[in-house]
C-alpha cells in the first residue's frame, strides 16, 4: 500500500492511494461520513421566540451549526455514557443563546458552558431580529455519528475515483480531443502531438475517445489506485478525520476477530 499526498488544506485533503481494494477506499470514504463522531446541538428549550421564524426552523438551523471541541474524547455518546442515556455532563454540553433585536443572530452567539467547545465557523446567520423581537434558547449538544443524523456528519463531501491511465497511440495531430476535454487534461506539445498534462483532473468521462476519429486514445481506470477527496465540515481537521475513520474500521474488524475467537 502506498499513499501520496496531493492537496492538503485545513478542511480538505486529497491523496492517492495505491495497492488497496475498492472496498477499502470505499470503507474510508463511508467511515469519514458516517462513523466518525462529532458534536451537534441535539435538544433545545425555547423560552422566548418572537422572531419571524417558527420554533422548528430555529431548532433546525441551530442543529446544523458545526461545533468543534478542544478535546472531543472527554465526551461520550449518550448510548455509551455511564448515565445510560439519562443525560449528564459526560455526554451533554449545555449552551445558551439570548438575543434582542434589532440584530442579526449569528452562530457565535451560541455560548457553551464548556469553554473548549465552540462553533466551527463564526458568522453563520441564524435569524434576523427586528425592533423589539427576542430569542432566548437553552439546550445541549451531544456527540454522535453521521449515521444517526447528518448534523453529526464530520465528513461532508467525501469521494474517490480510480486513477485514470491515458494512452495515446497513433495521433493524427487534429487536436479535437484537446478541445472537447472539459477538464483540460490534454494539451498539444511543440510537435502538435497530444500529451497528458493534468492526469489527476481526468474524470474518466471518455469524451476524448468518442471525439477521436482515429481511435488513438484509450482511457482505462487503474484498478488498485484511487484518488480520495475528503472534505470536512470544520469540526475536525480533514487530515485527522481520515485517521479516525481508519481507526474506526480497524476497531470494528478487531471486534469481529475477538468475537470469532470467543466462539471457536
Amino acid at each position, binding site marked *: 500500500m502506498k499513499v501520496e499526498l496531493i492537496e492538503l488544506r485545513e478542511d480538505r485533503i486529497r491523496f492517492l492511494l495505491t495497492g488497496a481494494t475498492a472496498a*477499502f477506499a470505499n470503507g474510508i470514504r463511508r467511515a469519514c461520513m458516517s462513523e466518525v463522531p462529532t458534536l451537534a446541538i441535539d435538544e433545545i428549550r425555547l423560552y422566548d421566540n418572537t422572531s419571524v421564524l417558527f420554533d422548528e426552523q430555529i431548532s433546525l438551523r441551530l442543529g446544523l451549526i458545526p461545533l468543534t471541541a478542544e478535546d472531543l474524547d472527554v465526551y461520550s455518546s449518550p448510548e455509551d455514557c455511564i448515565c445510560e442515556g439519562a443525560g449528564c455532563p459526560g455526554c451533554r454540553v449545555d449552551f445558551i443563546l439570548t438575543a434582542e433585536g434589532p440584530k442579526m443572530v449569528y452562530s457565535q452567539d451560541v455560548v457553551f458552558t464548556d469553554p473548549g467547545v465552540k462553533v466551527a465557523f463564526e458568522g453563520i446567520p441564524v435569524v434576523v431580529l427586528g425592533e423589539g423581537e427576542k430569542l432566548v434558547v437553552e439546550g445541549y449538544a451531544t456527540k454522535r455519528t453521521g449515521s444517526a443524523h447528518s448534523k453529526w456528519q464530520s465528513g461532508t463531501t467525501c469521494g474517490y475515483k480510480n486513477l485514470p491511465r491515458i494512452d495515446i497511440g497513433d495521433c493524427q495531430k487534429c487536436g479535437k480531443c484537446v478541445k472537447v476535454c472539459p477538464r483540460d487534461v490534454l494539451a498539444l506539445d511543440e510537435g502538435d502531438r497530444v500529451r497528458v498534462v493534468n492526469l489527476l483532473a481526468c474524470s474518466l468521462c471518455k469524451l476524448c475517445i468518442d471525439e477521436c476519429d482515429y481511435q488513438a486514445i484509450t482511457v482505462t481506470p487503474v484498478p488498485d489506485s484511487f484518488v480520495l477527496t475528503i472534505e470536512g465540515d470544520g469540526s475536525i481537521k480533514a487530515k485527522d478525520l481520515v485517521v479516525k475513520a481508519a481507526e474506526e474500521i480497524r476497531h470494528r474488524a478487531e471486534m469481529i*476477530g475477538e468475537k470469532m475467537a470467543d466462539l471457536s
Partner: protein
Amino acid sequence: MDLKIIKKDEEELHMEFEGESHTLLNLLRTELLKDERVMYATYDTKFTIMDNPIFKLRTRGEDPLEIMKQAASRITAQCDEFLQCYNAALG
C-alpha cells in the same frame, strides 16, 4: 456492534451484524472472497434501515469461524498499513 449467530455448522455460518453497514461488511466480503477456502461470502439486508444485515459464509470444509477471524485480522493489518503510510505521507 453485536453479533448474533443464526446458523453454524462445519462449513457454513450465518450471522447477524447489529448496526453494521456496507462500510465494514463490503470490506469483509471482499477479503473473504480472496481466500480460496471460501465457497461463497455475501450479505443482505432484508429491509434497509429497519433490519440488520445478515452475513452468509460457506467454506470448502474448513471452520468458518477461523476463516472469518483470519479475514478480520487481514483488515486490521490493512488499516495499520494504511495509517502508517498515511502518516508518513503527511510527514
